[in-house]
């Protein structure tokens, strides 16, 4: 290892970096803002995915029997459910128990005992599926059985949640793409200023036979440094925000939102953000120097 060589190289990078301090701070700031946005977006998305899958895990299929269904048909449905490998567990809820449940749920709102004289509810099976993505298929197959009136799992709500989610995701991706582009352009301009300030040195380097790769290296490092520093600041901001939100959420008795918020793989996210920040810096500076070296 040639320490003299390394010292010389690092000295060049440090000199570059401090030469346009003001511009450099702007670049780092832009990267930081971009990465905060990206990080928050990715974090919330991960938390929502977590919460979503929790919710999907809680989804049950209610298989309502026709009031006119025979006992044989009910038994056939029971066997079909029991045989289905995709089903985790299932329970039969006779109409009487169904009414009790409803009473319990509506307690304090409507007094069902006075509102109704007879039980309008059909018998039903409550089916719990192993994997959330199998819910629709299982519901569809149960629906086909004779004597079944309706196999319901709240399709409308699930569909609406999914479509709102996808719109939000698209808007988020567009906003972040614009920010990443902006950060790239600002880094690129910053590097171009450094390159311009050092054009004399670069021309001498070329004159004495330095390779383009060698001339490029300090500028690439400069861009990488700006990207990484901005990302580190952003990660700090995100960590503080996460701590504050966790504290706030602790006050809300909404168990699964909290757990899914905390359960996001933060370490993985940090690595992703560092990779994005570093890549933006490197690519932007590569382009900035490339334009200069080609002339």
């Amino acid at each position, binding site marked *: 290892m040639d320490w003299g060589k390394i010292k010389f190289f690092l000295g060049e990078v440090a000199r570059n970096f401090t030469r346009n301090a003001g511009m450099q701070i702007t670049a780092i700031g832009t990267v930081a803002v971009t990465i905060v946005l990206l990080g928050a977006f990715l974090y919330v998305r991960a938390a929502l995915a977590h919460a979503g899958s929790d919710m999907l895990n809680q989804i049950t299929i209610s298989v309502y029997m026709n009031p006119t269904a025979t006992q044989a048909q009910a038994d056939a449905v029971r066997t079909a459910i029991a045989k289905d490998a995709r089903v985790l567990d299932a329970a039969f809820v006779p109409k009487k128990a169904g009414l009790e449940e409803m009473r319990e749920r509506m307690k304090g709102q409507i007094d069902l005992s006075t509102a109704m004289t007879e039980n309008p509810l059909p018998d039903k099976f409550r089916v719990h599926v192993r994997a959330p993505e199998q819910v629709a298929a299982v519901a569809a197959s149960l629906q086909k059985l004779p004597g079944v009136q309706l196999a319901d799992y709240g399709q409308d709500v699930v569909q609406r949640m999914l479509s709102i989610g996808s719109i939000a995701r698209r808007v988020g991706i567009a906003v972040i793409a614009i920010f990443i582009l902006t950060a790239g352009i600002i880094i690129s301009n910053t590097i171009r200023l450094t390159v311009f300030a050092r054009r*004399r040195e670069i021309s*001498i380097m*070329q*004159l*004495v036979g330095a390779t383009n790769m*060698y001339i490029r290296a300090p500028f690439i490092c400069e861009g990488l440094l700006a990207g990484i520093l901005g990302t580190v600041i952003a990660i700090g901001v995100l960590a503080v925000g996460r701590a504050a939100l966790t504290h706030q959420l602790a006050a809300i008795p909404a168990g699964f939102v909290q757990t899914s918020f905390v359960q996001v793989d933060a370490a993985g996210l940090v690595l992703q953000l560092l990779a994005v920040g570093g890549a933006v810096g490197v690519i932007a500076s590569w382009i900035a120097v490339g334009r200069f070296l080609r002339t």
Partner: protein
Amino acid sequence: MISLRGVSLVYPNGVRAIDGIDLEIAKGDFVFLVGHSGTGKSSLLRLLYREMIPTGGQITVDGIRVDRLRRGRIPALRRHLGVVFQDFKLLTDKTVWENVAFALQVTGAHTKDVMRQVPRCLEMVGLSHKSRMYPGELSGGEQQRTAIARALVNNPKLLLCDEPTGNLDPQNTTEIMELLGRINLKGTTVVVATHNQAVVDRMRRRVVRMENGRITTDEERGFYFLGLGQDQVLSG
């Protein structure tokens, strides 16, 4: 060392900077390129170190076909030759030592080579005692000697000088030319583009005269002006 065959250089605006030049320069030669400003001396030098590409003809420098050289191979060519300019092209924020070392450091030389070569070159140009000074603290002649030390630090076989004494007083001019002469004696081929008559007439070396992008005369032990006798030089 250098061979040009039918070399021409036409700028995009149509100006013919070099117009069909044939020239051979042997290893260890010392050659003056003379002529008025704008006759193509600098363009010719730029073609030799591949700052420009000829629009026609063949250029060979130290066995390398410069006219066909791929971009990626340019550094290899430049490491085998040194270039010195009228305006020195030194880095003002680096010391003499650092300026000379720079040429080695940016070509990826080992530190121990830097430590060996830099003092050798500074001694050759007589600046060992000023190695810690900045270019702004030096005279023009000393700055040019720093530039020459930088050009020599890669042990080039060829030294190209474009008006090396253009910014210097007669005293410094003489010293620089003597230095170039000593470098030539050690085996380095030296090509000097100049319009300094005194320098050319005193050195009595090969003189290649250019006019309008062409070589008009090529004399061994020539004078700046064609056919000028020794007596006339002394009286003039």
